[in-house]
């Protein structure tokens, strides 16, 4: 059976992290599971945790007044759920709900932020891992906003 340190350090988000740092961040981690339909967090709530999916599927949703929630992204094995934990005032910007049985690593955001603040080398490493994720999600959002399938690009 793998211990939490192995699980954390084998997750794609932390894969390749210096062994000493890995031990350090493991102190902030615990295993969690979510049943289908269960929320990881709600919009406006305190971003106290970030979640690293080990297995499962999580949908990010936005509530639309008078209508069912709109799902705008799903995250899967190896993905990171939630980035608001790194941005003051640390509030979630959307809902996250498990679609299937989801097993994840929950990282205590206060704990991780403190360790990143205390050791800027670790903090910089974590930011370098986070930035490509943020960038790729920004690009995806740009494409969604453009609604490329919605209207033809050229008149007949």
């Amino acid at each position, binding site marked *: 059976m793998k211990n939490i340190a192995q699980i954390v350090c084998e997750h794609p988000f932390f894969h390749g992290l210096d062994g000493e740092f890995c031990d350090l961040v493991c102190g902030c981690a615990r295993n969690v599971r979510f049943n289908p339909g269960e929320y990881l967090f709600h919009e406006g709530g305190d971003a106290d945790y970030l979640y690293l999916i080990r297995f499962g*599927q999580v*949908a*990010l*949703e936005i509530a639309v007044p008078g209508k*069912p*929630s*709109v*799902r*705008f*992204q*799903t995250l*899967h094995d*190896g993905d990171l759920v939630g980035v608001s934990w790194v941005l003051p005032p640390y509030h979630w910007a959307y809902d996250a709900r498990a*679609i*299937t049985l989801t097993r994840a690593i929950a990282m205590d955001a206060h704990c991780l932020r403190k360790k990143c603040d205390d050791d800027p080398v670790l903090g910089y490493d974590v930011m370098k891992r986070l930035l490509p994720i943020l960038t*790729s999600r920004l*690009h*995806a959002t740009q*494409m*969604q906003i*453009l*609604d*490329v*399938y*919605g*209207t*033809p*690009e*050229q*008149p*007949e």
Partner: protein
Amino acid sequence: MISDDFMVPEPVRVLRKQQELETTWTLELEPGGAGRRPFLPGQFNMLYMFGVGEVPISLSGDAGQTETLIHTVRAVGPVSNKLAALKPMDAVGLRGPFGVGWPMTAGEGADLLIVAGGLGLAPLRPAIYHVLRHRERYGRVILLYGTRSPEDILYAGQLEEWNKRPDVEVHITVDHAGGDWLGKIGVVPSLVPSLDFDPEDTVAMVCGPEVMMRFTVNALRDAGVEDESIYLSMERNMKCALGHCGHCQFGSTFVCKDGPVLSFDRLRGLLSLKEF
């Protein structure tokens, strides 16, 4: 000298019509007086509505059967609205087939990564039919399909059938969905990094809105696929279909004659230019 045959639309009958999506229909046409009109996956025909105009429409049927010609049409303008309103036994003008198709021979022996966005699945469907007909000639076959919402999935039944095959990997994603959709949500290029594939042994065929293709090309290049192995179906401003009128000129390329399928190494630097 170009034969008049290529300039004069031949009247053909609509044999069958099927609604695919809210504004999208598939027309099954008789192949014309010659009785057969062979085509290559990726080629297109010019469909002419008498008194209205003419538009290029990709062939979306099986090139292995030439008894009928299949076109999937989205009603977005004056001509395509008229095409979509056609009924069985109505007449439509037909010229073609035209253009350079998908690299079915160049792709033999390699893994195929087929990436379709929205209605872009229609021009790729003949390539998929071809691959399935000659499955032994190709390595892994991965189909990525992205569209706006679950209600906008084109050829949904067929995608389901292909997904059941053990020798084809199908991944579908939508831009947004309601709570009853249990599949993936996100843009189709974002599926590429999660794939476990050998970029050096992969030929990618991509078709969809140009913005989607640009994002997809970036994802494929980031994954290590060579520019020469990425093929896109461009459908800019094709009018005469013969490379004469110049409307579709794209750098030194005439999309209708040299394409519509072009390898990315020929498009590099041009794709992000504003149309002229």
